């Protein structure tokens, strides 16, 4: 089948089979390896991408599902100011860098901050339920998200409300 969609701001068209996962299309066809093949069951969050404005596990998305949609991978997201807010916040709090869970951690943070600009600890933990991370303790992760929220508020409004 022919699948056309917007990938990181560019129109792309490819021939693929409908039973292929978005994860494999990104990794094999477009060589975008920021989304990791973790559990392939939608439970670990390491393959997270933004599909039509929502963070989803790309291993649960079949090829035909993205037709006409917009996909932003961690590679595309890393070109934005929002990404810089998050990595700065994470660095300030001492959130570990990890080859596997960073994609999920960063995109889950983005999804949360777009919905709730100043999340509470409980809201942060709830947002990270779908992200399996063994490298950063939850308290530090929560501090990282809070720091990212503060940096974003300052960048956008020049102050922390």
């Amino acid at each position: 089948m022919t699948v056309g969609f917007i990938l990181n701001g560019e129109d792309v068209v490819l021939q693929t089979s409908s039973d292929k996962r978005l994860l494999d299309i990104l990794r094999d066809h477009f060589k975008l390896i920021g989304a990791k093949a973790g559990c392939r069951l939608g439970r670990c969050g390491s393959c997270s991408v933004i599909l039509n404005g929502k963070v989803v596990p790309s291993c649960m998305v079949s090829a035909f599902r993205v037709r006409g949609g917009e996909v932003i991978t961690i590679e595309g997201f890393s070109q934005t100011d929002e990404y810089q807010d998050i990595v700065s916040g994470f660095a300030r709090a001492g959130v570990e860098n990890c080859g596997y869970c960073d994609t999920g951690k960063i995109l889950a943070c983005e999804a949360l901050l777009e919905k709730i600009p100043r999340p509470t600890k409980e809201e942060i933990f709830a947002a990270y339920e779908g992200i399996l991370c063994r490298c950063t303790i939850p308290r530090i992760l929560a501090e990282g998200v809070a720091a990212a929220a503060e940096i974003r508020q300052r960048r956008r409004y020049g102050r922390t409300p």
Partner: protein
Amino acid sequence: MDGLHNQVFAPLTLQELFDFWQRFPDAIPFAGGTELVRGQGWRTFELPGNILALFRLEELRRISRTERYLEIGSAVTLDEMLGLGKILPEILKLAVMEIATPQIRNLATIGGNLCCPERRMDSFAAMVVLDARFELRTANASRWIAAGRFAPGLGAPVLEKRELLTRIRIPLETWQHVSHCRIGQARWPDSEGAVFSFIARTEKGILSEIRLALAGKELVRDREIENSIIGKNLPLHRREVDVFNDRWRTKLQDATFPEGLLRDRFLNLIEQAAFNLAD
């Protein structure tokens, strides 16, 4: 269309959908698709031969609200439901928040959740206690069915051939007491577990309405037992709660569901919810 693999049809209108379904009666509706691909850890998905993709059908993605009802299209995602905020009844919010993870809730739809027998213990009990009604449509007709009659027993819901769940109508009422508890494995389907939903309304220190249901392998709800405690003064006396609980115990004595530990948990939850009514 893909000659080697699957045939995917993504209609823009319900008419187109039913036309295709008529031509390919074995086609499977695919909204979020999370249930169809769940547990498929291998490289490619094993999908049905003919797929009816529902995500482009605007009609199934509508949310509307009147003074008395909230109407949700069956292809509305669970995350979109949570985005309704305070409009969404509290019991339904608690139920939806317990489903899978935030990322999967961005894909999974409420219609899919209600139609999959394996997911019967997610939002179904909440729908039943809220007295929600489901609109089921075929190419030529539509009918409304009470949530409690949609899937009363084990297995698939009472959908006719080529019938689709299109809309869910939820009465908007005020409930002061809400309790939702998942018994068994958290967040993922569990054939041995169940979901307990409880709502109650009080007026001037009197219990004016109470509804409770347990959904698992089967649905357990008894309007007669619920009515037996309505009208009592709050806080309920120990003896009144015992009588209420004994009625449930008698009803479930010979039932195949719930049994054993699950039955004890259910009775404990009823007792706990009844005592909490005074708070």
